[in-house]
């Protein structure tokens, strides 16, 4: 059986109707651990394998089999706990959670209800107040606990033949979330909560929670009550509906798992001298090997490159974008503060328009750096550079230099050439100081953006004063 965590985030936010209602939302997040074998057995963990091919006798709950805990899963749980600022419980316990379902052959799931491996953490995140990413607000959400838990199998419902097909491989979705929602008036006790399942994306999560809050408020304001039930989110209709199979509040009859002793974790201080180190999970050792967490990475980017905090968020939120940005920096003399504009405005918007990931970009960091160098060297104007970028995006294998030559985008630096062009333009319009800027614009248009605007202005002013 593959293993999962349960993260419980309570959070609190306000909105007003007739009397103020306070919604309370808790999320139960199931995340599959990246490991070779399952939490309690040596079966392989693999996506989309033939049904029941990754199932051992224990996974099939055959009598006489026992769970054996996977060390890698324990380490993963500790790492997650540390990354989320939790207290790690040096002694945690396993429990059985009983319920009947076709994909749960034992009739119970082994989990960590009472004393899980990590508790009382937090996660900070940032929200944009407006759409322009210019006003960011930091929020914190509490994490109640992180626990190791067995996954149940997969059921395929065959309604035509009135049967359910069961695959005990597990290892299906890597991240699942259930939302718990209730509402109450400030100062009063929490309301009855409902559990919402079948939420398949972050966007649907937001919709499901919003709908459920609204539904509960309407029910309560109409004098009805909220049932402590499980509901399913219908993504097509954007609403939640009661789930057929669930019969009100479940009594899971939690009991200690009799086949597993308590899980003991150590740190540098409590490490026993003579123990086989394969049997030891050392929290401090894991802590030292944690990679830089996002908040640290962002701070480093801001400090090293002088970019804005909101830029660092975008860089980190897109897979591979930070690396791309840093690669370009290495290959160009353009300042990072200018490079970031190209990365976030040009590259990223093209990627989004074409639904591409950074690693699928037809423009490599090498090519972009080359282009930016030409811009820095004043070989082309920034308008021309954008045109070159558009050409590069076609991925025809041409270099910026080749495109510049082909489209005749070089900046005209020659004084005499520019003089002649300016005279021609001025012949069309009468010399008038007020239209100086308009004239510059005209010159630019005539020369298809290739003239150096600074030079043009100087020439025009000279001409006008003659």
């Amino acid at each position, binding site marked *: 059986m593959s293993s999962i965590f349960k993260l419980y985030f309570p959070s609190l936010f306000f909105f007003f109707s007739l009397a103020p209602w306070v919604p309370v939302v808790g999320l139960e997040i199931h995340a599959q651990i990246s*490991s*070779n*074998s399952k939490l309690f*057995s*040596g*079966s*392989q963990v693999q996506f989309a394998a*033939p*049904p*029941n*091919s*990754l*199932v*051992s*006798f224990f*996974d*099939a709950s*055959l*009598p*006489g089999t026992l769970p*054996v*805990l*996977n*060390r*890698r*899963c324990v380490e993963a749980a500790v790492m997650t706990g540390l990354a989320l600022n939790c207290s790690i419980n040096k002694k945690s*316990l396993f429990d059985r959670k*009983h319920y*009947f379902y*076709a994909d749960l052959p034992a*009739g119970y799931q082994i989990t960590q209800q009472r004393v899980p491996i990590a508790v009382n953490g937090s996660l900070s995140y940032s929200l944009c107040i407006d759409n322009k990413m210019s006003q960011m607000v930091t929020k914190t959400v509490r994490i109640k606990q992180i626990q190791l838990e067995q996954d149940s199998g997969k*059921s*395929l*419902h*065959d*309604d035509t033949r*009135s*049967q*359910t*097909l*069961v*695959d*005990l491989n597990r290892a299906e979705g890597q991240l699942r979330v259930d939302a718990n929602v209730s509402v109450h008036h400030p100062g009063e006790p929490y309301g009855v909560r409902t559990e919402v399942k079948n939420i398949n994306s972050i966007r649907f999560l937001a919709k499901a929670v919003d709908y459920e809050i609204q539904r509960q408020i309407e029910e309560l304001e109409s004098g009805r009550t909220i049932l402590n039930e499980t509901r399913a989110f219908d993504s097509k209709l954007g609403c939640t509906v009661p789930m*057929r*199979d669930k*019969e009100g509040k479940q009594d899971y*009859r939690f*009991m*200690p*798992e*009799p*086949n*597993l*002793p*308590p*899980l*003991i974790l150590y740190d540098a201080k409590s490490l026993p001298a003579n123990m086989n180190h*394969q*049997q030891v*999970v050392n929290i401090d050792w894991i802590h030292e090997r944690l990679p830089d967490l996002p908040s640290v990475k962002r701070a480093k980017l801001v400090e090293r490159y002088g970019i804005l905090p909101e830029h660092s968020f975008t860089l980190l939120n897109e897979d591979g974008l930070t690396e791309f940005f840093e690669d370009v920096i290495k290959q160009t003399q353009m300042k990072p503060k200018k490079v970031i504009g190209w990365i976030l405005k040009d590259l990223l918007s093209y990627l989004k328009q074409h639904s591409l990931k950074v690693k699928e970009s037809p423009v490599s960091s090498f090519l972009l750096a080359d282009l930016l160098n030409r811009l820095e060297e004043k070989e082309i104007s920034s308008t021309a550079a954008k045109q070159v970028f558009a050409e590069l995006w076609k991925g025809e294998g041409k270099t910026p230099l080749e495109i510049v030559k082909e489209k005749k985008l070089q900046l005209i630096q020659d004084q005499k050439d520019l003089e002649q062009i300016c005279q021609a333009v001025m012949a069309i319009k009468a010399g008038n100081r007020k239209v100086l800027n308009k004239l510059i614009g005209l010159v630019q248009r005539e020369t298809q953006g290739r003239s150096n605007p600074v030079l043009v202005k100087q020439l025009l002013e000279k001409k006008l004063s003659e």
Partner: protein
Amino acid sequence: MRALGLGRWLRSAPGVGRLPRRVPPDRTVLRAPAGSPAPVPAAGRQRPPAQVGRLGRSSARSGAGGASAAPRHVTVEVLDHLEHLALVDFRDSEGVERLQKAIQFADQLHEVNTDGVEPMDSVLEDRCLYLREDDVTEGNCTEELLKNAREKVEEYFVAPPGNIPLPKLEERETFLKGS
């Protein structure tokens, strides 16, 4: 899932209890085998292990410390709830009586003064929990596993559609209604 006859299972369980004299003499003392299912007579159905210690008590809590294991009356509501949860069938008054005697037996635990003592949750608490290396060592025995299945479709186990909960008390033919 089919209900099973707990009464019949209880009658067939052998063995003598380990606690002293107070145990009623009619031999229906329960050993609660930790984790392994009880022996399966005739019908070949799955049986949940007897879990005596955690059965709900709604009525008649035995007095603080003092009285030794007074007989307990378990209400119909609790019995119905148990039948839903564990899919057991108390079948007849003898089955219910066995249950009450089992609770009475377990209640003897209350005679021990546990003030200031940490609850024990496992007799294995002094043992080391063995940690396995993250290697693939088993699985890949689909055919062997499916041999156990009464019904299969391609390589899937077949089960009835969804969950069929036990019907409510009013809708069932059960002796519990009469009590």
